[in-house]
């Protein structure tokens, strides 16, 4: 994912434009993403079957059987990062898909319709839209969002006869005292997901026409574990002041722990990130030129605004240090992966991913992160078409204030549909939050 240098944010009256200090190791991610894309568009020519997936990383399971894959959200993010999302969204809307539907879904479906029927004559869409390979199988593994399986159901209706497997990942609500990675509900649900992952491997093997390659899966999951451990270590190093890397860096590094999980180069990319962070700590270099505030990003990433947001916050001398999206998912418990017998570890990571947790567990984990990273305030990114993330924002806002004394602010936006942004509202809300933090500091002196 590249940080765009186009589109300077407007900053209102209280800030001057400053550049964020994005990790240079992020360039390695760009290389991997490009390699993946080349592999994907040539997959069919190379005799590979293509699987569509949504939700949590299923790539290694398909890679182990020498299949290529498209991760719906990852695909939408890539399209948006290249500012090519408008056309597929228009195509989907013309088909009758309401713009209140998940914008990831609309973007991917627009690409699918462009691939199936061609790009309408009045629209100009690049190859990232029109060259999307058609699926040979569909696998869903969606935690914490009922819209995900409904999205794949919609895709599957466009491809009658293409086999579909849905890994039902239950909510871990905290019934009868169960908590994060503990309790009867947790144990039962881990076993439930693990069983389905086993069934999914059999499904993939059946589609491929040969026994499932568990040895290759073990090899790939070994790489996933190492990548996850490096990422966790690097993230935890960012508790220092000034923060050497930001939520925006970790958003760039989502790909190696999401749809590129197990991909060649992922370990090296995260090792480079960790080493760069260690050097920055030694040199006293922060992710923003002059860190005055440390914020937590609550909500999903806005891919077409990633660079725009990074600049905006840098200009407000604000390090967005951590986020629920980046820090509570994507192999967030790498220690639990046993490469020799990986299904249980995968089940644990997928079950305990942030979106599938009940509110009380979510709050506890999020508050732990706020304390660990010395957070001054919280941004609630109300992604308009991601109701899974937004469902508990206002509860969080109230309890952050009551229990931790941390102020928050909210602005609307979206993952890949920028029409939901109102820039002056964003500026005003950020300014108000920072002024609240200043006032609190003043009172404490």
């Amino acid at each position: 994912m590249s940080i765009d240098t186009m589109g300077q944010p407007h900053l209102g009256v209280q800030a001057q434009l400053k550049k964020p200090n994005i990790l240079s190791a992020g360039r390695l991610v760009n290389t991997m993403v490009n390699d993946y894309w080349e592999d994907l568009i040539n997959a069919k020519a190379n005799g590979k079957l293509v699987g569509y997936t949504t939700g949590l990383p299923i790539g290694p399971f398909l890679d182990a059987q020498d299949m290529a894959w498209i991760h719906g959200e990852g695909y939408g993010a890539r399209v948006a990062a290249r500012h090519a999302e408008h056309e597929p969204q228009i195509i989907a809307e013309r088909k009758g898909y309401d713009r209140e539907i998940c914008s990831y879904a609309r973007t991917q479906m627009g690409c699918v319709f462009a691939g199936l029927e061609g790009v309408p004559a009045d629209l100009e869409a690049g190859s990232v839209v029109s060259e999307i390979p058609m699926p040979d199988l569909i696998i869903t593994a969606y935690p914490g969002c009922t819209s995900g399986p409904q999205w794949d159901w919609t895709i599957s209706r466009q491809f009658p006869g293409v086999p579909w497997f849905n890994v039902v990942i239950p909510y871990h609500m905290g019934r009868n005292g169960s908590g994060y990675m503990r309790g009867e509900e947790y144990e039962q649900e881990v076993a439930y997901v693990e069983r389905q992952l086993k069934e999914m491997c059999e499904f993939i093997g059946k589609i491929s026409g040969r026994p499932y390659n568990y040895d290759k899966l073990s090899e790939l999951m070994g790489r996933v574990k190492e990548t996850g451990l490096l990422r966790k270590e690097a993230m935890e190093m960012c508790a220092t002041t000034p923060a050497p890397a930001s939520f925006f860096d970790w958003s760039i590094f989502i790909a190696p722990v999401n749809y590129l999980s197990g991909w060649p180069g992922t370990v090296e990319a995260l090792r480079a990130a960790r080493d760069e962070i260690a050097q920055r700590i030694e040199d006293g270099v922060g992710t923003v030129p002059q860190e005055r505030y440390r914020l937590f990003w609550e909500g999903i990433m806005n891919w077409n605004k990633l660079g725009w947001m990074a600049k905006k916050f840098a200009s407000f001398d604000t390090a967005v240090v951590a986020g629920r999206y980046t820090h509570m998912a994507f192999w967030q418990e790498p220690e639990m992966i046993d490469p020799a017998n990986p299904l249980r570890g995968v089940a644990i990571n997928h079950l305990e991913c942030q979106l599938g947790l009940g509110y009380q567990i979510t709050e506890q984990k999020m508050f732990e992160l706020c304390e660990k990273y010395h957070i001054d305030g919280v941004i609630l990114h109300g992604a308009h078409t991601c109701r899974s993330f937004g469902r508990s924002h206002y509860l969080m806002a109230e309890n952050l204030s009551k229990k931790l004394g941390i102020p928050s602010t909210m602005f609307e936006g979206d993952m890949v549909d920028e029409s939901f942004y109102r820039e002056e509202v964003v500026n005003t809300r950020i300014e108000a939050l920072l002024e609240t933090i200043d006032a609190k500091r003043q009172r404490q002196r």
Partner: protein
Amino acid sequence: MTEQLAAVLAEVAEIAQNPYAKAIEAKAAGEKVVGYYAMNYPEELIHAAGAYNLYLQESAEPVTAGHAYYYSFFCGPSRSLVDQAVKEQLDFLDVFIGGDYCIQEIGAAEVVEAQRRNIKSLFFRLPVGNEPTTRGDLHAGLSEIKGDLERALGVTITNEAINASIRLYNQNRALLREVYRLRELNPGILTSSQLVQIVQSSMVMRKDENNELLTRLIEALKDQPPRDVNGQLFFLSGAFCGAPKVDILSIIERAGGVVVADDLVHGWRYISTDVQESDDPLAAIAEWYLSRDFNVPCPTRVNPAINYPQYLVDQCKRYGVDEIFILQARYCEPHMFFFPDVKIALENAGINYLLIDVEHEVVSLEALKTRIEAFVEMNQFKSDMAAV
């Protein structure tokens, strides 16, 4: 309309307009009250636990205090539930059950749990799909909620009690289906608003009392003389959680539309399928979820074996109608994901449709009235031309 029918319908309307009154009375009399929201709950289990079983309803009140806890871009039914909870209007509940079939309802249930600690909150896991393992997974979800209900209410739920509740609930569904049958034979005897209220009464009353009310209603309906229906016949679809707005149904009927069948949750969807009595009643309820989905497909159930668009086409053909009103709650993603396929299926079958995007806070009835009237008139014109 006979006096007897008018009296029963007035009773039904009173219950529908004050949907929690009877539950509050029961609470005052010392009963435990269990509320749940919205479709897909195993009501028989709650009844078998000896508790008052209340299907919570979308309120007619505008959402105000609830917006302090829930975004305005969530569906009306879920925002209304949050609003009712934070206004302390649900504090008569002993137990609240949320469930996992829609993310917006899950979030609303989380707010209820966090904000109303005086109400014991439970969560019902109802796995989606239709794989060889799904029956067993549904059974596991039912076993979980049964155990949680037993703990919350301090009771043991026996198989005998569940089977007795299944019998009672099947009687209720059969009576409601009889009301539907009479309306099908004589479409003018009930308006669609009245029919919605009749189903709503079943959702909020004790089932034995509701059975008695429905029996009186059926007797009164049988006495009705045949009524000529001059308007256009329509199928009414959608509104998967909240009851359709009476205002919208009234506009349809005042414009000359006659609704002859529906797939509403406050309608045929709620009563289409019976649960079998069984030595393993949880297995029977699990089977009910799957079979009901074939009788009236549900866009939340992620069941690739069903074909909701074709179901709507088949229903229109069965009832001899060429027009359909689709009520889609604003922000209802399950419905929005299906609409394009529904549209194509209807167009291919030559069935005209009008999609009505329903907000909790109705913005402009006048604009809606114009659209509905135009749609009814257009179809009337087509029918007239075809007859020439």
